[in-house]
Protein backbone atom coordinates (compact mmCIF):
# COMPACT_ATOMS: atom_id res chain seq x y z
CA UNK A 1 0.00 0.00 0.00
CA UNK A 2 1.41 3.39 -0.84
CA UNK A 3 1.85 6.28 1.52
CA UNK A 4 -1.15 8.30 0.42
CA UNK A 5 -3.38 5.27 0.75
CA UNK A 6 -2.03 4.60 4.22
CA UNK A 7 -2.67 8.15 5.25
CA UNK A 8 -6.18 8.02 3.89
CA UNK A 9 -6.77 4.78 5.71
CA UNK A 10 -5.63 6.36 8.95
CA UNK A 11 -7.92 9.34 8.55
CA UNK A 12 -10.87 7.08 7.77
CA UNK A 13 -10.06 4.85 10.70
CA UNK A 14 -9.79 7.73 13.11
CA UNK A 15 -13.04 9.21 11.85
CA UNK A 16 -14.82 5.91 12.39
CA UNK A 17 -13.54 5.75 15.97
CA UNK A 18 -15.08 9.12 16.68
CA UNK A 19 -18.30 8.30 14.87
CA UNK A 20 -18.71 5.04 16.72
CA UNK A 21 -18.17 6.78 20.04
CA UNK A 22 -14.92 5.05 20.91
CA UNK A 23 -13.10 8.35 21.13
CA UNK A 24 -14.25 11.85 21.87
CA UNK A 25 -12.99 15.42 21.82
CA UNK A 26 -10.63 14.78 24.71
CA UNK A 27 -8.52 12.50 22.52
CA UNK A 28 -8.21 15.32 20.02
CA UNK A 29 -6.99 17.57 22.84
CA UNK A 30 -4.29 15.05 23.65
CA UNK A 31 -3.12 14.98 20.05
CA UNK A 32 -3.00 18.75 20.00
CA UNK A 33 -0.81 18.77 23.10
CA UNK A 34 1.78 16.55 21.45
CA UNK A 35 4.71 18.43 19.93
CA UNK A 36 8.28 17.89 18.70
CA UNK A 37 9.57 17.99 22.27
CA UNK A 38 7.13 15.30 23.32
CA UNK A 39 6.57 13.26 20.15
CA UNK A 40 5.32 10.22 22.05
CA UNK A 41 2.99 11.97 24.41
CA UNK A 42 -0.21 10.38 23.13
CA UNK A 43 1.23 6.88 23.10
CA UNK A 44 2.65 7.51 26.57
CA UNK A 45 -0.64 8.64 28.05
CA UNK A 46 -2.58 5.86 26.35
CA UNK A 47 -0.09 3.32 27.70
CA UNK A 48 -0.58 4.74 31.18
CA UNK A 49 -4.30 4.33 30.67
CA UNK A 50 -3.88 0.70 29.60
CA UNK A 51 -1.74 -0.11 32.63
CA UNK A 52 -4.01 1.66 35.03
CA UNK A 53 -7.16 0.14 33.57
CA UNK A 54 -5.82 -3.37 33.70
CA UNK A 55 -4.92 -2.93 37.33
CA UNK A 56 -8.35 -1.52 38.12
CA UNK A 57 -10.18 -4.25 36.22
CA UNK A 58 -8.29 -6.88 38.22
CA UNK A 59 -9.12 -5.12 41.47
CA UNK A 60 -12.76 -4.94 40.44
CA UNK A 61 -12.89 -8.62 39.63
CA UNK A 62 -11.40 -9.48 43.01
CA UNK A 63 -13.68 -7.11 44.86
CA UNK A 64 -16.81 -8.52 43.25
CA UNK A 65 -15.74 -12.08 43.99
CA UNK A 66 -15.73 -11.48 47.71
CA UNK A 67 -18.32 -13.18 49.93
CA UNK A 68 -19.40 -9.84 51.22
CA UNK A 69 -18.86 -7.19 48.56
CA UNK A 70 -17.44 -3.89 49.69
CA UNK A 71 -19.39 -1.55 47.38
CA UNK A 72 -17.47 1.49 48.51
CA UNK A 73 -14.30 -0.13 47.37
CA UNK A 74 -15.82 -1.18 44.06
CA UNK A 75 -17.13 2.32 43.55
CA UNK A 76 -13.74 3.84 44.27
CA UNK A 77 -12.14 1.71 41.56
CA UNK A 78 -14.88 2.47 39.02
CA UNK A 79 -14.54 6.14 39.88
CA UNK A 80 -10.87 6.00 39.03
CA UNK A 81 -11.50 4.13 35.82
CA UNK A 82 -14.11 6.68 34.83
CA UNK A 83 -11.63 9.47 35.48
CA UNK A 84 -8.79 8.06 33.47
CA UNK A 85 -10.98 6.93 30.58
CA UNK A 86 -12.46 10.40 30.30
CA UNK A 87 -8.97 11.90 30.34
CA UNK A 88 -8.00 10.10 27.18
CA UNK A 89 -11.40 10.38 25.57
CA UNK A 90 -12.37 6.70 25.81
CA UNK A 91 -16.01 7.62 25.76
CA UNK A 92 -17.64 4.20 25.69
CA UNK A 93 -15.62 2.98 28.65
CA UNK A 94 -16.54 6.14 30.51
CA UNK A 95 -20.24 5.62 29.81
CA UNK A 96 -20.25 2.11 31.20
CA UNK A 97 -18.51 3.40 34.31
CA UNK A 98 -21.34 5.82 34.91
CA UNK A 99 -23.88 3.00 34.85
CA UNK A 100 -21.55 0.91 36.98
CA UNK A 101 -21.43 3.56 39.67
CA UNK A 102 -25.20 3.68 39.81
CA UNK A 103 -25.32 -0.05 40.50
CA UNK A 104 -22.72 0.40 43.23
CA UNK A 105 -24.90 3.00 44.85
CA UNK A 106 -27.84 0.65 44.73
CA UNK A 107 -25.60 -2.13 46.04
CA UNK A 108 -26.81 -4.26 43.17
CA UNK A 109 -24.37 -7.13 42.74
CA UNK A 110 -25.87 -8.50 39.56
CA UNK A 111 -25.83 -5.09 37.96
CA UNK A 112 -22.23 -4.60 39.00
CA UNK A 113 -21.11 -7.93 37.63
CA UNK A 114 -22.86 -7.20 34.36
CA UNK A 115 -21.20 -3.80 34.16
CA UNK A 116 -17.82 -5.28 34.87
CA UNK A 117 -18.26 -7.58 31.90
CA UNK A 118 -19.37 -4.67 29.78
CA UNK A 119 -16.53 -2.42 30.82
CA UNK A 120 -13.99 -5.19 30.18
CA UNK A 121 -15.47 -5.59 26.75
CA UNK A 122 -15.42 -1.89 25.92
CA UNK A 123 -11.93 -1.57 27.28
CA UNK A 124 -10.57 -4.39 25.14
CA UNK A 125 -12.31 -2.94 22.09
CA UNK A 126 -10.83 0.52 22.52
CA UNK A 127 -7.44 -0.96 23.36
CA UNK A 128 -7.41 -2.97 20.14
CA UNK A 129 -8.54 0.00 18.11
CA UNK A 130 -5.98 2.38 19.58
CA UNK A 131 -3.22 -0.15 19.09
CA UNK A 132 -4.27 -0.59 15.46
CA UNK A 133 -4.29 3.14 15.00
CA UNK A 134 -0.80 3.48 16.47
CA UNK A 135 0.39 0.68 14.22
CA UNK A 136 -0.96 2.48 11.17
CA UNK A 137 0.71 5.68 12.33
CA UNK A 138 3.99 3.85 12.76
CA UNK A 139 3.71 2.39 9.25
CA UNK A 140 3.21 5.88 7.87
CA UNK A 141 6.17 7.27 9.77
CA UNK A 142 8.38 4.37 8.69
CA UNK A 143 7.41 5.03 5.10
CA UNK A 144 8.70 8.55 5.57
CA UNK A 145 5.31 10.20 5.75
CA UNK A 146 3.71 12.44 8.32
CA UNK A 147 0.62 11.79 10.36
CA UNK A 148 -2.43 13.55 8.94
CA UNK A 149 -4.47 15.32 11.58
Amino acid sequence: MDLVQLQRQLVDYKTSLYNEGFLDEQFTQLQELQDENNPDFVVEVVSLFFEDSERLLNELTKALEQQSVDFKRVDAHVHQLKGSSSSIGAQRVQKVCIAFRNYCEEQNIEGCVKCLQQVRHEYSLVKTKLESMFQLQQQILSAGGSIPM
Partner: protein
Amino acid sequence: METGDGASGSSSNKRPEEDEITEKNRKPEEDEIIEENWKPEEEEIIEKNKNLSVLVVDDDPVVRRVHDMLLQSIGIKAHVVENGKEAVDLFCIGLSYDLILMDKDMPVMNGIEATKEIRGMGIHSMIVGVTESDVDSEKREFATAGVDYCFQKPLTPERINFILNDLNNF
Protein backbone atom coordinates in the same frame (compact mmCIF):
# COMPACT_ATOMS: atom_id res chain seq x y z
CA MET B 1 10.47 42.33 19.53
CA GLU B 2 10.47 39.70 22.20
CA THR B 3 12.90 36.93 21.44
CA GLY B 4 11.29 34.63 23.94
CA ASP B 5 14.77 33.69 25.10
CA GLY B 6 14.96 34.49 28.78
CA ALA B 7 18.70 34.02 28.80
CA SER B 8 19.33 37.02 26.59
CA GLY B 9 19.88 39.05 29.70
CA SER B 10 17.62 42.02 29.12
CA SER B 11 15.79 41.86 32.39
CA SER B 12 14.38 45.36 32.10
CA ASN B 13 11.19 44.18 30.45
CA LYS B 14 10.87 41.02 32.51
CA ARG B 15 9.51 42.52 35.68
CA PRO B 16 7.45 40.26 37.94
CA GLU B 17 4.50 42.61 37.42
CA GLU B 18 2.58 39.67 36.16
CA ASP B 19 -0.69 41.41 36.88
CA GLU B 20 -0.02 44.07 34.29
CA ILE B 21 -1.14 41.88 31.47
CA THR B 22 -1.78 43.18 28.00
CA GLU B 23 -5.40 43.82 27.21
CA LYS B 24 -5.56 41.41 24.30
CA ASN B 25 -5.10 38.43 26.60
CA ARG B 26 -7.94 39.37 28.95
CA LYS B 27 -11.25 37.70 28.58
CA PRO B 28 -13.88 40.04 30.05
CA GLU B 29 -16.78 37.58 30.00
CA GLU B 30 -15.36 34.99 32.30
CA ASP B 31 -18.04 32.42 31.69
CA GLU B 32 -17.90 32.78 27.95
CA ILE B 33 -15.00 30.50 27.37
CA ILE B 34 -14.14 30.33 23.70
CA GLU B 35 -13.73 26.67 22.91
CA GLU B 36 -12.40 26.85 19.41
CA ASN B 37 -9.15 28.25 18.03
CA TRP B 38 -7.33 28.80 21.31
CA LYS B 39 -4.03 29.92 19.81
CA PRO B 40 -2.68 32.97 21.64
CA GLU B 41 0.77 34.27 20.83
CA GLU B 42 2.70 31.30 22.16
CA GLU B 43 6.02 32.88 22.93
CA GLU B 44 4.39 35.67 24.86
CA ILE B 45 2.31 33.25 26.86
CA ILE B 46 5.28 31.07 27.69
CA GLU B 47 7.29 34.08 28.81
CA LYS B 48 4.47 35.28 31.00
CA ASN B 49 4.00 31.86 32.58
CA LYS B 50 7.66 31.05 33.15
CA ASN B 51 7.66 32.37 36.68
CA LEU B 52 4.48 30.72 37.81
CA SER B 53 4.74 27.79 40.18
CA VAL B 54 2.00 25.21 39.95
CA LEU B 55 1.22 22.12 41.99
CA VAL B 56 -0.84 19.29 40.47
CA VAL B 57 -2.48 16.99 43.01
CA ASP B 58 -4.16 13.88 41.59
CA ASP B 59 -4.18 10.16 42.30
CA ASP B 60 -4.73 9.19 38.66
CA PRO B 61 -1.48 8.84 36.70
CA VAL B 62 -3.25 9.53 33.42
CA VAL B 63 -4.75 12.79 34.68
CA ARG B 64 -1.44 13.80 36.26
CA ARG B 65 0.36 13.37 32.97
CA VAL B 66 -2.30 15.15 30.96
CA HIS B 67 -2.43 18.17 33.28
CA ASP B 68 1.35 18.24 33.48
CA MET B 69 1.58 18.29 29.69
CA LEU B 70 -1.12 20.92 29.38
CA LEU B 71 0.87 23.20 31.65
CA GLN B 72 4.14 22.32 29.95
CA SER B 73 2.70 23.36 26.60
CA ILE B 74 2.30 26.89 27.95
CA GLY B 75 5.68 27.10 29.61
CA ILE B 76 4.95 25.85 33.12
CA LYS B 77 6.88 23.03 34.74
CA ALA B 78 4.56 21.83 37.49
CA HIS B 79 5.24 19.85 40.63
CA VAL B 80 3.10 16.76 40.63
CA VAL B 81 1.98 14.74 43.66
CA GLU B 82 -0.39 11.84 44.18
CA ASN B 83 -2.60 12.78 47.08
CA GLY B 84 -3.64 15.49 49.50
CA LYS B 85 -1.19 14.52 52.19
CA GLU B 86 1.79 14.85 49.85
CA ALA B 87 0.51 18.29 48.91
CA VAL B 88 0.09 19.41 52.51
CA ASP B 89 3.57 18.11 53.34
CA LEU B 90 5.07 20.38 50.68
CA PHE B 91 3.47 23.41 52.33
CA CYS B 92 4.62 22.21 55.73
CA ILE B 93 8.22 22.27 54.60
CA GLY B 94 7.77 25.84 53.44
CA LEU B 95 7.19 25.57 49.72
CA SER B 96 4.70 27.87 48.07
CA TYR B 97 2.81 27.83 44.79
CA ASP B 98 0.92 30.36 42.74
CA LEU B 99 -1.65 27.79 41.74
CA ILE B 100 -2.78 24.39 42.97
CA LEU B 101 -4.83 22.04 40.86
CA MET B 102 -6.51 19.86 43.46
CA ASP B 103 -8.30 16.64 42.60
CA LYS B 104 -11.22 15.91 44.88
CA ASP B 105 -11.17 12.16 45.38
CA MET B 106 -7.84 10.74 46.43
CA PRO B 107 -6.70 8.10 48.91
CA VAL B 108 -4.76 8.94 52.10
CA MET B 109 -6.10 12.50 52.13
CA ASN B 110 -8.71 13.78 49.69
CA GLY B 111 -8.88 17.20 48.07
CA ILE B 112 -11.41 18.61 50.48
CA GLU B 113 -9.40 17.77 53.57
CA ALA B 114 -6.19 18.93 51.93
CA THR B 115 -7.78 22.23 50.91
CA LYS B 116 -9.04 22.80 54.44
CA GLU B 117 -5.62 22.08 55.87
CA ILE B 118 -3.86 24.34 53.40
CA ARG B 119 -6.29 27.19 54.00
CA GLY B 120 -5.92 26.53 57.71
CA MET B 121 -2.22 27.20 57.34
CA GLY B 122 -3.10 30.68 56.14
CA ILE B 123 -2.21 30.02 52.54
CA HIS B 124 -4.08 32.18 50.06
CA SER B 125 -2.74 30.78 46.79
CA MET B 126 -5.30 30.05 44.15
CA ILE B 127 -6.70 26.55 44.48
CA VAL B 128 -8.67 25.09 41.61
CA GLY B 129 -10.72 22.08 42.55
CA VAL B 130 -10.97 19.34 39.95
CA THR B 131 -13.90 16.99 40.16
CA GLU B 132 -14.99 13.81 38.46
CA SER B 133 -18.49 14.91 37.70
CA ASP B 134 -20.34 18.12 37.16
CA VAL B 135 -22.51 17.71 40.23
CA ASP B 136 -23.27 20.99 41.98
CA SER B 137 -23.27 19.58 45.50
CA GLU B 138 -19.75 18.26 45.01
CA LYS B 139 -18.57 21.60 43.76
CA ARG B 140 -20.25 23.40 46.61
CA GLU B 141 -18.58 21.14 49.15
CA PHE B 142 -15.26 21.88 47.56
CA ALA B 143 -15.97 25.60 47.46
CA THR B 144 -16.83 25.58 51.16
CA ALA B 145 -13.51 23.93 51.87
CA GLY B 146 -11.80 26.89 50.25
CA VAL B 147 -11.20 26.38 46.55
CA ASP B 148 -11.43 29.41 44.29
CA TYR B 149 -12.82 27.55 41.29
CA CYS B 150 -14.13 24.11 40.56
CA PHE B 151 -13.98 22.38 37.20
CA GLN B 152 -14.71 18.95 35.91
CA LYS B 153 -11.67 16.98 34.85
CA PRO B 154 -9.84 16.90 32.62
CA LEU B 155 -9.00 20.54 32.31
CA THR B 156 -8.90 21.95 28.82
CA PRO B 157 -6.49 24.54 27.43
CA GLU B 158 -9.33 27.07 27.51
CA ARG B 159 -9.98 26.47 31.20
CA ILE B 160 -6.28 26.70 32.05
CA ASN B 161 -6.09 29.92 30.08
CA PHE B 162 -9.04 31.31 31.99
CA ILE B 163 -7.47 30.32 35.32
CA LEU B 164 -4.10 31.84 34.47
CA ASN B 165 -5.66 35.05 33.25
CA ASP B 166 -7.48 35.32 36.52
CA LEU B 167 -4.32 34.47 38.45
CA ASN B 168 -2.39 37.17 36.69
CA ASN B 169 -5.05 39.66 37.64
CA PHE B 170 -5.14 38.53 41.27
